């Protein structure tokens, strides 16, 4: 049986609010926490598989050209080597999120430095790794002077252009204006678990344990790549060691392990090295941006311009959607938004946590700080003044909007001093101290999802979907949704995820996972409740379930006898997607200290206030917010991909050279979850929180640096050398 729900209108009445179990939103301990803390949670490469061969990927050491020959003999002569897979079905790039089909497979046509083209398979990992160094190839590499590698030096393609009114005119007329250029560096997801897969082929079915975010799309991508039907493929990803976009689509290791297992008729494990993860998985594009803001005397925006240039490989559709939240965050009648894409030969650019806003919001929010100074207005006040009633260009209403509340509650919690601001007001020893703030915004996405729920007469339930949990808390919140709806303690709800044999979920990405899959579980539970009303002979409104049965009445065993109730919930967003602008909003406040001599910045404290609809689990949601704020610190201060202009290779392809924040970089983080229900976002009135925490936070730090020492750095990350260069004498 199925419960089907297409959401065409806001769901103002949500059953979750009238249920009796009282577990939704509660800070329950993550279901899988103990497994993770005791090392018993099993990640992709860790399944005990007998007779498993080990594969090591080999990658191209040049930026563009052809591999004209692969001499596998030397390699095959090495100890323990079983095969060299250089099959034409290997993939040259990773699949973009939601691709649902194989990415580019011409591995011998090299489009970027580090492109995988072969797999060396041996009995042991050590043998495969060693032999992979002996694989001889002949190449025809293009002269580097002919290869476009620098996005600035290429004629770009326009991806997006929207204009309203006359921005240049507004800029000349306005009493206050800001016209500033910015750059942001490329980023790597750098999930702690490197991409890995174990593939098994029994002649009929390909079973792959892999580390992937969206099994519902990955199954089509993998089947397409290796030439099988989807019903011949099974992918399992029960635990994923972080994704952040890098595991949205399939990557080389999954396809290579599969092809090797099919050819050799033995299981094959392939784990990318950390360097390979950097070199051949997704990068976030670097950007260059221009912000133009025109305001009246009182700071009311009259003009808003945001132009950006990003890059990607030839033939890739993805362009970092830098302007996504700029479209609707602030008012201003005269608008110009353009996004250009340069084709360069660097590894595939794709989604890295909060694609678009992660780099678009920091520049916008620094520009707003500059405007606040120009208008002599408190930066919080300036933002409050410019919150539009509707989408400034399309006129569509907002589904729900908590920016003002976030700004106010955040400012109060942080102790924001709303007086007139001037840099260099506080010094402690070598350190300038200052504060800064920024708004947060992230578009709300929601996707089609299916889940199956079984209510057992013994008072337990089973929730099933191929949805993944990347550390986001999916296992836990789904137990809470089912527990709340069916009157069960969540410890009596078994949540089974990450297996393509189960109903298709939405996948984890774009912050849509929780709201989408939880809505499917909600729909399934509603269908079960409908059946229960017949057993209990009451109406839905009278069906009060608690602790394994009717509250103060029959238990499920008494009600159902030995019959279980099973329903599949299908959720699909309908007209709500077009009728409303839905987004999560928030505000960041940061205090930093900047070393007057070295330009080093340390974050002293940070507060984030976020409105993202209904909170499903206060504990896991808080962790997600904190994680995003940590990424804000990385984007603000340290994270940058560096490419060698001489040969196009990524210079800092490991965790020693690509600097993600470490423990000592992160101060106490205060998180405020602003009360909100968003009935037009999903039937459970929730939005996503996986990305909002890093959609502008870097600007709060940048603005605090300016307030501390007077250095207005417009290039991210704000490294000490850049601070020193911009520091006033």
């Amino acid at each position, binding site marked *: 049986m199925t419960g089907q729900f297409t959401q065409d209108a806001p769901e103002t009445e949500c059953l979750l609010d009238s249920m009796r179990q009282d577990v939704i939103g509660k800070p329950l301990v993550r279901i899988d*926490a103990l497994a993770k803390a005791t090392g018993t949670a099993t990640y992709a490469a860790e399944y005990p598989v007998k007779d498993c061969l080990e594969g090591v990927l080999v990658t191209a050491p040049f930026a563009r050209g052809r591999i004209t020959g692969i001499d596998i003999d030397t390699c095959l002569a090495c100890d323990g080597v079983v095969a060299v897979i250089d099959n034409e079905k290997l993939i040259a790039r990773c699949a973009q999120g939601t691709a649902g089909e194989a990415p580019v497979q011409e591995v011998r046509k090299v489009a970027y430095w580090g492109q995988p083209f072969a797999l060396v398979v041996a009995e042991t990992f050590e043998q495969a790794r060693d032999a992979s160094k002996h694989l001889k190839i002949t190449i025809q590499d293009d002269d580097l002077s002919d290869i476009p590698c620098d996005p600035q030096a290429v004629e770009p393609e326009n991806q997006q252009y929207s204009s309203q009114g006359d921005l240049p005119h507004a800029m000349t007329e306005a009493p206050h204006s800001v016209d500033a250029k910015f750059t942001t560096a490329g980023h790597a997801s750098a999930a702690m678990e490197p991409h890995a897969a174990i593939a098994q082929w029994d002649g009929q079915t390909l079973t792959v344990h892999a580390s992937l975010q969206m099994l519902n799309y990955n199954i089509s991508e993998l089947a397409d790549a290796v030439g099988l039907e989807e019903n011949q493929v099974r992918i399992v990803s029960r635990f994923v060691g972080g994704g952040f976009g890098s595991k949205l689509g399939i990557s080389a290791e999954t396809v290579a392990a599969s092809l090797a297992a099919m050819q050799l008729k033995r299981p094959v494990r392939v784990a990318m090295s*950390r360097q390979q993860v950097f070199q051949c998985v997704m990068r976030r594009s670097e950007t260059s941006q221009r912000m133009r803001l025109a305001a009246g005397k009182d700071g009311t925006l009259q003009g808003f311009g945001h132009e950006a240039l990003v890059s990607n490989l030839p033939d890739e559709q993805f362009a970092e959607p830098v302007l996504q939240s700029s479209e609707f965050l602030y008012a201003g009648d005269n608008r110009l938004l353009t996004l250009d894409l340069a084709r360069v030969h660097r590894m595939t650019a794709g989604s890295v946590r909060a694609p678009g806003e992660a780099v678009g919001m920091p520049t916008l929010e620094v520009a707003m700080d500059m405007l606040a100074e120009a208008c002599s207005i408190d930066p919080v006040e300036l933002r409050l003044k410019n919150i539009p009633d509707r989408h400034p260009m399309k006129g569509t209403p907002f589904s729900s909007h908590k920016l003002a509340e976030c700004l106010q509650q955040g400012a109060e919690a942080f102790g924001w001093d709303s007086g007139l601001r001037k840099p260099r007001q506080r010094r402690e020893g070598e350190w300038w101290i200052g504060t800064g703030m920024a708004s947060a915004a992230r578009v709300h996405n929601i996707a089609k999802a299916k889940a199956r729920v079984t209510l057992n007469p013994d008072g337990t339930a089973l929730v099933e979907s191929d949805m993944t949990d990347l550390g986001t808390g999916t296992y836990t919140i789904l137990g809470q949704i089912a527990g709340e709806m069916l009157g069960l303690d969540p410890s009596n709800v078994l949540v089974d995820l990450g297996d393509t044999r189960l109903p298709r979920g939405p996948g984890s990405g774009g912050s849509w996972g929780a709201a989408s899959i939880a809505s499917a579980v909600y729909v399934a539970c509603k269908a079960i409740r409908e059946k229960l009303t017949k057993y209990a002979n009451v109406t839905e409104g009278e069906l009060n379930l608690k602790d394994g049965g009717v509250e103060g009445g029959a238990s499920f065993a008494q009600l159902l006898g030995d019959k279980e109730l099973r329903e599949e919930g299908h959720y699909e967003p309908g007209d709500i997607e077009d009728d409303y602008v839905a987004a999560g909003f928030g505000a960041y406040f940061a205090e930093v200290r900047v070393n007057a001599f070295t330009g080093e910045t340390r974050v002293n404290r940070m507060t984030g206030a976020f409105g993202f609809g209904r909170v499903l689990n206060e504990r896991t949601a808080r962790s997600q917010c904190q994680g995003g704020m940590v990424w804000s610190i990385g984007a603000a201060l340290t994270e940058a991909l560096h490419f060698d202009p001489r040969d196009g290779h990524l210079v800092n392809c490991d965790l020693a050279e690509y600097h993600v*924040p470490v423990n000592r970089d992160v101060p106490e983080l205060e998180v405020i979850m602003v009360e909100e229900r968003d009935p037009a976002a999903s039937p459970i009135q929730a939005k996503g929180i996986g990305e909002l925490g890093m959609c502008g936070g870097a600007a709060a730090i940048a603005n605090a640096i300016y307030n501390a020492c007077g250095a207005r750095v417009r290039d991210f990350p704000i490294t000490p050398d850049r601070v020193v260069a911009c520091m006033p004498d």
Partner: protein
Amino acid sequence: MPIIINDTSLDVPADPRVTLLDFLRHHAGLTGTKKGCDHGQCGACTVLVNGMRINSCLALAIAHDGDTVTTIEGLGTPDAPSVMQQAFVDHDAMQCGYCTPGQICSATAMLQEIAAGWPSDVSTNLDGDISASAEEIRERMSGNLCRCGAYANIVSAIGEVAGRDRV
């Protein structure tokens, strides 16, 4: 001589290239210890060798002939977690969980280093008592990366254990 891993003796591997990390994961079947970088840059592979924390990816298994290795599985189990493991659970000091075993092994040894009076970059004096302040914990745990950004909760989990130990 064998290597003693969580009270079980195992012969060192014949292949001298096998790292202690791969020995644990591939030979001993102890996959609780994670590989995040294989280059000593992330701390995911942290285990205790004769009670001290090391990055097991930077050690060759044969070099640890006769040594005693404690992995995350040796610290505690789901039925009987160690105090540190339980504190990580209670504080939600994890998200994806991939760095977590390394964090917990590292934290366990780190508190002993503090108790033994080993100073760190943030210690105010080189000898004498050192308290397990948040600042000391942050500094001493900075070799264990957490891309999910669970640092604030990691610090509070460890802080709780440190406090409990002090009483």
